[in-house]
């Protein structure tokens, strides 16, 4: 059986050549302009729902009822946002979501790195099957885990505790991370490892002083993915965090959905407040993300 890293080599190190940034503005033909307009139009259509959230969050219910969802607000109305903020105790939900997503992202990147170090660089025996086994966490439909995990966490007193959700998602997210990093580490420059080993570095030192710093760009991409994915998770937080004080932002929003007292503009405000944190997070880390999941393994 050939090596795992050959099997799972989809993500390969970027070519050593630094990308030439095309800053030179060449002549633009009519066709180029047409393509630009098409690209912008597509972007507009993708963004329409977001624009709708934005305009309806600042509309009064009366305004909405008279003119529908598509018009601009006649005057700015903040009650929807204030209403939602106080009704769900938004700072509390925000904190829960930030805590869960941050701890999961960091822990899952750590676990992925350890796994991948053993699989991609250590090339332990049976690594192909280990990866398949780990990937199971990604393949199992989540509802299949609910019953058993419910009993298990109830036994150890972690039911309705954010740490239950943190542990579950650390495992689920690190499956993807292990798959990806193991293949990146499989193509790790051997010369560096040899040099470190000649200098008498132990495995642990090699991991922290050589492998970790060099693969940092890939690790930060994983970190961002894990944070956003965990933030948006719904089913497991809904079932495991039953008390109001433990809910995450998406769960709090969906619970309010069934509420008859919710008017449309408060709903819209909830959507706006619900998507802002990930949007801000994404905008801050955009550049890291687009360096790509493949970047940075080999320089």
């Amino acid at each position, binding site marked *: 059986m050939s090596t795992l890293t050959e099997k799972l080599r989809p993500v390969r*190190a970027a070519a050593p050549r630094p990308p030439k940034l095309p800053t030179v503005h060449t002549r633009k033909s009519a066709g180029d302009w047409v393509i*630009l307009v098409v690209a912008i139009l597509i972007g507009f259509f993708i963004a329409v*729902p977001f624009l709708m959230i934005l305009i309806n969050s600042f509309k009064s219910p009366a305004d909405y009822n008279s003119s529908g969802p598509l018009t601009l607000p006649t005057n700015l109305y903040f009650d929807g946002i204030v209403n939602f903020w106080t009704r769900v105790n938004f700072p509390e939900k925000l904190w829960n979501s930030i805590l869960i997503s941050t701890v999961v992202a960091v822990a899952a990147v750590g676990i992925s790195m350890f796994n991948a170090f053993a699989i991609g660089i250590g090339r*332990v025996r049976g690594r192909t099957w280990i990866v398949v086994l780990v990937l*199971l966490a990604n*393949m199992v439909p*989540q509802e*299949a885990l609910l019953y*058993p995990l419910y009993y298990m966490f109830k036994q150890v007193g972690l039911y309705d505790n954010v740490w239950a959700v943190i542990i579950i998602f650390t495992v689920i997210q690190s499956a993807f991370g292990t798959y990806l990093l193991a293949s990146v580490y499989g193509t790790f420059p051997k010369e560096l490892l040899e040099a470190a080993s000649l200098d008498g570095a132990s495995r642990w030192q090699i991991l922290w002083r050589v492998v970790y710093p060099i693969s940092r760009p890939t690790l930060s991409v994983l970190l961002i993915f894990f944070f956003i994915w965990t933030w948006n998770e719904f089913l497991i937080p809904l079932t495991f965090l039953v008390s109001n004080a433990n809910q995450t932002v998406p769960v709090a929003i969906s619970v309010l959905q069934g509420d008859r007292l919710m008017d449309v503009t408060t709903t819209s405000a909830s959507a706006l407040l619900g998507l802002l944190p990930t949007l801000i997070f994404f905008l801050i880390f955009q550049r890291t993300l687009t360096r790509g999941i493949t970047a940075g393994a080999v320089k």
Partner: protein
Amino acid sequence: MATPAPFAGTKTASRKAPAGAAPITSLIPGATGRGFWIYLLPGLLLLTIIVLIPLGWNLYLTFTSYRGIRPPVWNNFENWTKLFGDDVFWTSFGNSVAMIVAMVIVPTLLGLVLAAMLFDLVGKKFGSRIASFLRATYYLPQILPVVIAAIVIGWILRPENGALNQVLGAVGLESLQHNWLGSPDTALASIMVIMVWVQLGYPIVIFMAALQRVDPELYEAAELDGANWFQRFQAITVGIIRPEIFVVTLTCTIAALKVFGPIYALTRGGPGTSTIVPSYYSYSEFFQNQQVGYGATIATALTVVVAIVAIVFITFQTRLERRDEER
């Protein structure tokens, strides 16, 4: 046309020891594979508790009748026999095919074209700023929690005073107004359009990152040879970013087979069973009908299908890559 070119990029990464030579040990000289086991320990321990034990538990439940309160009663293959004759189950898998079209095939193809368009044309002729702005816009639906997406889509597709019907009315197409998610003939198609919207940003971001690997000189050479944009795209771009195409199609296929959130939030599988998917069917058996044994059976069957798809994918990919290396 420059046909061998696409694989130029593959060569750099394949300077590994030839397969089948000496048994490969770790990449660190002198360190045996055995000493690395300790690094796998925390991960495998957690995996066992959170995934493997529940999975075994589920497998056991598939052979029982269990309603969640009294202890499970062994009933042999009753659940499995029922499953194979269950029309709803087969309908749900039929809908999975629709989900694969909407979440894998369309976004990957469209994503390839759009990524190349942004990178090659928009980025090079109008500056990389506007290209990254558009990329961020395309990615927006990916960061939207599905419950929030469902709220907005509710406004747009709602039969009375929904935005889409209003727009249709305003331009004189009243005849096309429709209860988009509420009637069986359009519910699945509407979900498919929504899923394309949700998924599109993922391949675009990954492909654009991958495109940075493409050597501009290859393009210039191909251009001199008289290849048009589409030919260059096909021969060079697709060839070089093929690893990413595999990652995207595999991860999206798994996501499409398992899709749950959007169905739960938008239609709950309805009207009737027109938008039911295996994951939601299993959920409703688990928690609405309290048929835990049968719910576990559906979930286990789904896991098996996903695992088979993943293994076939990875094997196929390995074969393709090995063939390239032998060239």
